[in-house]
């Protein structure tokens, strides 16, 4: 069977139609035929047919058929096919055709609906394909990752050996159509470049999203939502009625009509059901093309449109990418940030109502059980009506769009609460009532939506628990969708328990009334892992016999990968705060989960690796688990391997992996010393340093610095030397100077990033904060450490200049606090260090500034600084000081600062400190702090006040306070707390 040739001329209209029908029937369902068609370069012709002159009698049919074929081509398409469709500008042609239909008012209702349906169906197909191509799915996670799709043949995208799947297929054009596909393969291989094609696809995809959400195009997409009132299937009547009875907690009559009456009397725009009772018996209305058929067709259109927007609502347009590629006119480029762009889109969608529709609504006879529709239905009211329509596919689609609309968005949820569903329920009551829906897909969508809602809006704990209960039940639904339900349910559970320690505990309750999340998720992880090992290991018939439903097709494998990702993500969210849950995961399951988790760290699927990293990080927050189980399981080595993986690209997905891996390393190096050695021995440190130096991805760079900060925390001087020999003091200085003075080279690099990735100002401040924290850890806690640091920065003068520069930038309180602690640490040094500090007027100014700072933490740091500076020097300290300063002099090689050291007796240093600080007005500030509302500040100030009351420091009396202060000065020099970054 060969594919019919497409005729471009429309002389023989009937023949052209027949060809299109044959073509449609040939490609639907057959990947090979689709690929063949694409390779022959026929996609542009098809797109041209979408613009068949409307005067042509068969124009609408030709357009519909072409749209249907395009939609089928896009349906789970390979990347090259999608690229081909986008290059031919199919989305633009489809929306133009949609606008044409809007302008034709003379059409029959049925014809018009059919035309609209095929166009929006094709659009949905294309946009769903774009979304899955360019971004991780909000429902199904990150998946195998873009890079992996090209690398491993087992993934879904490289499906069949005879399906031409290379990028060359996309560049085939009509000239080549005569050649066989194998010729094409060779001829195009050298011309096409994988990465440029792939980035081109991302760009075109984002532009297409931009197109469909632009204010000019949007009405043609949203208008069809208002073509006809949404029907409601009788199967939901009971459910909704019960929910309403519960909500009103007043007796209701069993008849559904009574419910409608109730709701219409509630001041809604509804009028009492006007029943054309004669229509009951009107056989013609039922037998003929009854209005019900039209309304159901209109509902299908709602399903398609909702599908389009739920796929691409959250995906930013090309933004900076487009301007970089020299394409102007993209509206997304005008937004300050992707978040703003998406917020604007949300507003456009939600503000839309029937009056904005360019389509003429169809006249329908309402059924006897229905109220009159609201006069001017809004976008949200249509979605709510579809969500409770009782037609599962439309319900599902509308619910997923609602789910995306309220995701991380409190404003939309408030807007939603202002509505009432057509059955007279509050939106949340309706969603909760859907827990009884027979369709698994509807339950899943409704409760994923609830999961998003309870995160942005305060609900009672009881509501959260009801949501959790349904989602946990969905984990047991194995029958449908080959695991898709469990994947989405696990992600939704992760969402529900995220940042909510109470719900985390509830989810992991055991016993007869518990939710058993850890066991259930663990079971799924085990099951998915078995599927994968059986699939990969040997596809023997034996394996197939035992698990017939889990055969080795690429689809099942992909789902198993996604299931592992989802489960690991959920477990990570569950164990983020509670130690007992970490214990439960590590010790309380059979089979033991940890080995599986560790094996997931080296999974072929990117998403699984990222999620495994997340879980390891969550588990590593418990020192007990970390020291024993995690280390025994060999996590450290795997993580180091992961960040050393040079095959990772520079795109967003791989960055996510590195971010998570470095975050896990942060925890591991902090409280587990052997991990430091692993890191140092395996070249992991070099990788961290290079990430900190050159990584363009803000969060990864930050984590790399953070990890280094933790490596340095309470480390030996030897470790400090090693780290700094790799990182370099100049790099550290540049980072510590902060964003305003970073080199132009680095800034240029940042700007080359897509807008969504470019480090925000916040991130660069975080980098600065961490760099200062590194300096703080370097200067802790012996004089030798301080001497090493000072000389590293090129001497005390340059060092203090840097710190002063940072302090007087007054960029952020957090940065100031770290800078203050650097001074605190230097003030613990020997006499020479203290004196060097005391002679910096700017530093003394800074100390007084700290003490008067509005932020309590900075005040405390300032007070610690003074505490250390005015501390009496013991004989032992002096000796130590002399020794280390001698060492410092040697390493510095220049005696300038050292010369200062010897010009007065060491005992004078504390007196000198008191005197100089007083001259800078410190005692006044100190007095005001004695009544500070902050207990910590007040106590420190009191402890210090004695030293400034008497003129001379009572060295005799200081021995007791000395002791106390030294022990507490341990906390004063305390360094970085364990990372708590999200």
């Amino acid at each position, binding site marked *: 069977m060969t594919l019919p040739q497409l005729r471009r001329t429309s002389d023989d209209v009937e023949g052209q139609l027949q060809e299109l029908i044959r073509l449609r029937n040939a490609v639907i*369902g057959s990947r090979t035929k689709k690929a063949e068609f694409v390779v022959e370069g026929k996609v542009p012709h098809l797109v041209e047919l979408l613009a068949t002159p409307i005067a042509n009698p068969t124009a609408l049919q030709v357009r519909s058929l072409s749209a249907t074929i395009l939609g089928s081509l896009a349906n789970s398409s390979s990347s090259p096919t999608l690229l081909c469709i986008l290059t031919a500008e199919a989305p633009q042609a489809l929306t133009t055709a949609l606008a044409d239909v809007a302008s034709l008012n003379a059409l029959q209702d049925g014809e018009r609906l059919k035309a609209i349906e095929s166009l929006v169906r094709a659009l949905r197909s294309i946009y769903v394909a774009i979304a899955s191509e360019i971004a991780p799915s909000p429902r199904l996670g990150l998946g195998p990752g873009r890079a992996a799709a090209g690398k491993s043949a087992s993934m879904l995208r490289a499906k069949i050996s*005879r399906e031409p799947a290379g990028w060359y297929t996309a560049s085939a054009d009509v000239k080549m159509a005569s050649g066989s596909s194998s010729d094409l393969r060779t001829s195009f291989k050298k011309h096409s470049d994988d990465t440029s094609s792939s980035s081109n696809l991302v760009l075109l995809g984002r532009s297409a999203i931009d197109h469909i959400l632009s204010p000019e195009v949007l009405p043609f997409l949203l208008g069809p939502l208002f073509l006809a009132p949404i029907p409601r299937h009788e199967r939901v009547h009971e459910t909704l009625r019960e929910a309403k009875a519960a909500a009103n907690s007043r007796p209701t009559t069993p008849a559904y009509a009574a419910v409608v009456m109730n709701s219409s009397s509630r001041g809604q725009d509804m009028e009492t059901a006007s029943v054309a009772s004669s229509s009951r018996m009107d056989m013609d209305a039922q037998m003929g093309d009854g209005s*019900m058929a039209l309304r159901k067709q209109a509902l299908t259109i709602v399903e398609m449109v909702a599908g389009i927007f739920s796929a691409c609502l959250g995906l930013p347009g090309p933004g900076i990418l487009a301007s970089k590629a020299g394409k102007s006119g993209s509206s997304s480029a005008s937004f300050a940030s992707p978040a703003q762009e998406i917020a604007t889109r949300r507003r456009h969608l939600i503000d839309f109502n029937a009056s904005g529709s360019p389509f003429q609504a169809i006249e329908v006879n309402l059924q006897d059980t229905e109220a009159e529709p609201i006069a001017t239905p809004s976008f949200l009211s249509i979605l709510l009506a579809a969500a409770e329509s009782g037609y599962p596919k439309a319900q599902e689609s509308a619910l997923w769009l609602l789910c995306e609309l309220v995701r991380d968005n409190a404003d939309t949820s408030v807007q939603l609460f202002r509505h009432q569903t057509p059955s007279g329920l509050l939106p949340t009551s309706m969603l909760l009532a859907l827990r009884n829906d027979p369709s698994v897909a509807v339950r899943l969508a409704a409760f994923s939506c609830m999961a998003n809602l309870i995160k942005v809006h305060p609900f009672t704990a009881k509501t959260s628990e009801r949501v959790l209960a349904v989602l946990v039940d969905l984990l047991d639904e194995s029958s449908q969708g080959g695991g898709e339900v469990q994947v989405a349910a696990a992600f939704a559970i992760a969402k529900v328990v995220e940042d909510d320690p109470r719900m985390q505990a509830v989810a992991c309750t055991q016993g007869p009334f518990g939710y058993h999340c850890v066991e259930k998720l663990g079971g799924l992880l085990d099951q998915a892992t078995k599927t994968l090992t059986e699939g990969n290991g040997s596809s023997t018939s034996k394996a197939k016999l035992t698990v017939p439903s889990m055969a080795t097709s690429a689809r099942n494998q992909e789902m198993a990968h996604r299931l592992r990702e989802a489960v690991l993500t959920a477990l990570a969210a569950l164990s983020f705060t509670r130690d007992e849950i970490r214990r439960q995961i590590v010790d309380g399951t059979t089979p033991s989960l940890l080995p599986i988790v560790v094996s997931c760290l080296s999974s072929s699927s990117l998403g699984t690796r990222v999620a495994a990293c997340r879980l390891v990080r969550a588990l590593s927050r418990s020192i007990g688990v970390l020291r024993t189980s995690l280390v025994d399981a060999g996590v450290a080595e795997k993580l180091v391997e992961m960040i050393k993986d040079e095959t990772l690209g520079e795109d967003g997905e791989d960055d996510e992996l590195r971010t998570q891996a470095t975050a896990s390393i942060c925890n591991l190096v902090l409280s587990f010393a052997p991990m430091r050695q692993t890191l140092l021995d395996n070249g992991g440190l070099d990788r961290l340093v290079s990430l900190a130096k050159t990584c363009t991805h803000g969060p990864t760079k930050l984590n790399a610095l953070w990890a280094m900060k933790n490596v340095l925390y309470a480390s030996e001087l030897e470790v400090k030397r090693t780290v700094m020999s790799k990182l370099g003091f100049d790099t550290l200085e540049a980072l510590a100077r902060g964003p305003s003075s970073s080199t132009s080279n680095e800034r240029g690099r940042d700007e080359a990033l897509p807008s969504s990735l470019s480090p925000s100002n916040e991130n660069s401040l975080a980098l600065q904060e961490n760099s200062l924290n590194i300096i703080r850890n370097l200067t802790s806690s012996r004089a030798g450490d301080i001497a090493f640091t000072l000389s590293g920065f090129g001497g005390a003068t340059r060092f203090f200049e840097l710190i002063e520069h940072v302090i007087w930038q007054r960029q952020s309180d957090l940065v100031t606090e770290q800078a203050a602690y650097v001074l605190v640490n230097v003030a613990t040094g020997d006499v020479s260090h203290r004196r060097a500090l005391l002679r910096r007027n700017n530093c003394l100014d800074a100390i007084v500034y700290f003490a008067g700072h509005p932020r309590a933490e900075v005040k405390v740091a300032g007070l610690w600084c003074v505490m250390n500076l005015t501390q009496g020097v013991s004989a032992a300290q002096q000796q130590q000081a002399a020794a280390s300063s001698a060492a410092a002099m040697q390493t510095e090689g220049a005696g300038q600062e050292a010369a200062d050291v010897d010009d007065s007796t060491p005992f004078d240093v504390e007196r000198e400190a008191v005197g100089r600080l007083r001259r800078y007005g410190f005692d006044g500030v100190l007095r005001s702090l004695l009544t500070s509302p902050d207990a910590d500040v007040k106590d420190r100030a009191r402890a210090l006040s004695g030293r400034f009351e008497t003129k001379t420091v009572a060295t005799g009396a200081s021995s007791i306070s000395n002791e106390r202060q030294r022990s507490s000065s341990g906390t004063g020099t305390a360094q970085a707390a364990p990372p708590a970054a999200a």
Partner: protein
Amino acid sequence: MAARKPLVLGVAEWEKKLNEVHVNKDDLNRLVMDYLVIEGYKDAAARFSLETGLRPQVDLASIEDRMTIRAAIERGDVEEAIGRVNELDPEILDNSPLLFFHLQQQRLIELIRANRIGEALHFAAEELAPRGEEYPELLPELERTMALLAFDLPSSSSTASTAALPAPPHVASLLSPSQKLKTAGELNAAILASQSQGSDPKLPQMLRMMAWGEDLLRT
């Protein structure tokens, strides 16, 4: 509760009790309508609707579509059926690869039945082999179908016994009408699902459930 003596009912008593159960007439009508619609009795559904004043939840034209498709498969015209399904909803066959495979398999069976061997081989290589590659779990089924080529087909003109090498039953069964019915049923269910309809009528389900319950009680 636990202390109570189990209630034993004789068969007659049970029947009597059953008869006493009042079933809402409206509910019963709905069940019947559900059955008629799903099983595709369009005229009966229309008549029933007229008599009971019950509106079917689907437009009756869609029943007709399904029945035309079912009939096409039953007379062996798979191509026609595929065309009509695509007309109805172009995503059904794209989204259910298993169903699509079964339709293609049916087409292969029809080609073999018609003794168009060359075409059958070409079709198998062109269309079915790629499906098998994509979904390895389908391969055994494809092999079984191809096995038809190895045996003599029972032809209507000669009696089965004259065939030199008759196919073993599990292969020959592919040629039976029940195979067509199976394929047609699967397609019907997929269309119903695409129209947000239940794919199994409720009435037989309930009867089965009741029979099962009675069985349980009897033991």
